């Protein structure tokens, strides 16, 4: 729906550079997006207005229904440029409503284009409760057998409560540009100093929270280029993957995996040491590897039985 900011439409394929609405327009089947609570309905934040902060007509998230490769899906795209994609009362309620509607209407998938710092601090308490309602709604959708896919590739990453929500989803697709974590490096640095986490060290930040690392760890199911059509392809692929129900056996397996990860990780917080322990042959080269090479690397690590 929105024209590109500086490049002709055909040239803009970077997912990170697109706005949320541009991503929707380019990722889903052409013209198939039907928006619910669109901007003209002005369902906005009353709290931002009180604070004298500018509102967005859609409170920073566009939701609705679309087609993906002909299949019916529900869509939510967070606008990372607005308030860092932070979840406030209205924004969260749009996500929760979407997920609850999915349980009723049973689309083939819910696709979350997640770009968020987590709770919108300007709406602190409402944001926190809203994020927990979104989380419950994701798990209800999964319990109903609906695939919920998180796409993570925006410049702001997917942090805070949304980082938790992402890992409640059935699948996570990340680009190498994307980041997935809980606390941002700035918050950690503010709390424990630059020695703990130098937020200015971009390579360190991406080693710790970026798509390549998450993909190697298995916290992302797919790693793609920073390209809208690559995200589209991965979403199509993962939409049809059967996901194990979140039953006791599945959670025991997840627990064993996370327990082993914790117990077998080397001391310290160094990604290189961790990758080395995982069997990555040249950890220091990972930053320079392209996406295809990193995918091959993970395949070979899995083949080696690690």
């Amino acid at each position, binding site marked *: 729906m929105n024209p590109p900011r500086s490049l002709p439409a055909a040239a803009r394929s970077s997912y990170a550079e697109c706005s949320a609405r541009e991503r929707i327009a380019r990722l889903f089947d052409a013209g198939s997006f039907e928006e*619910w*609570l669109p901007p003209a309905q002005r369902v906005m934040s*009353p*709290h931002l207005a009180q*604070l*004298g*902060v500018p509102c967005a007509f859609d409170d920073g998230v566009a939701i609705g229904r679309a087609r993906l490769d002909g299949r019916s899906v529900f869509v939510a795209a967070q606008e990372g440029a607005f308030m860092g994609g932070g979840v406030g*009362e*209205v924004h969260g*309620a*749009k996500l*929760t*409503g*979407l997920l609850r*509607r999915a349980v009723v209407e049973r689309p083939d998938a819910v696709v979350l284009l997640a770009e968020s710092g*987590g*709770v919108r*601090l*300007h709406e*602190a*308490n*409402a944001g*926190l*409760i*809203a*994020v*927990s309602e979104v*989380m*419950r709604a994701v*798990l*209800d959708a999964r*319990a109903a057998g609906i695939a919920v896919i998180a796409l993570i590739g925006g410049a702001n990453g997917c942090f805070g409560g949304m*980082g*938790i929500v992402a*890992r*409640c989803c059935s699948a996570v697709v990340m680009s190498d540009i994307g980041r*997935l*974590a*809980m*606390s941002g*490096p700035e918050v*950690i640095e503010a*709390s*424990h100093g630059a020695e703990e986490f130098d937020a200015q060290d971009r390579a360190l930040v991406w080693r*710790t929270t970026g798509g390549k*690392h998450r993909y190697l*760890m298995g*916290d992302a199911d797919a790693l793609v280029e920073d390209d809208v059509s690559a995200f589209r392809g991965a979403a199509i692929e993962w939409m049809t993957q059967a996901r194990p129900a*979140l039953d*006791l056996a599945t*959670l025991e397996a997840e*627990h064993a995996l*996370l*327990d082993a990860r*914790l117990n077998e*990780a080397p001391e*310290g*917080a*160094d*990604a290189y040491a961790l990758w080395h322990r995982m069997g990555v042959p040249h950890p220091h080269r990972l930053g320079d590897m392209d996406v295809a090479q990193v995918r091959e690397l993970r395949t070979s690590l899995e083949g080696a039985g690690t």
Partner: protein
Amino acid sequence: MKWQDLASALFAAGHGITQVGDLLVGEPEFDGRTIAVVGSADHAPIGVAMALRQARVLLDTVARHPGRPILMLIDTQGQQLRRRDELLGINRAMAHLGCCVDLARRSGHRVLGLVYDQALSGGFITSGLAADACDALPEAEIRVMRIPAMARVTKIDRERLEALSQSNPVFAPGVDNYVAMGGVRRLWRGDLQACLREALADAPTGDHRALEGAQRGGRKLAQSVIERVLRA
């Protein structure tokens, strides 16, 4: 309140709840049945390890004790702010804890959260806030962030935030604000055993917090937005 005093008030002597590091765990008797207690103490930061330890108790309860109610006692300063936890995927560990709470709920266990001291930042998103209901002691401290820090991060005047917080429960700390917004179901006053009894008896199975926030007036829009989306 110290967890030991809380435990003494709720359960008979010899309740067997112990503290191992920051973790609280126990299987006290209450009204003739065993309850699973799991939680945190000493304003625990919740990192990968703490999330997994609590998840383990939930999984064991589901596996071995069908139908046993679960009480999560919450005292946390928030998520652990360490690079190592981020490297190892604290968001995944927290999600896993939330999934274990959800599994317990779906498997017929009533899961209650009780903030008995602090619940700061995101520390209880996947424990108390994932439970059937999260209650609190009246003296509990619940907040996302203190107002001075919020003022710095949002670049909004501290005085402005404080003034607005008098009439809008959304951005100011305080357990009463969370009750008004539906995030906390009720405060436990007076006879704590009676409060626990009531909490166990009427634990909801669905997420009605947006509705409660609207009814109580602290969160007026969420429920109506959810309903609008369902009808759109």
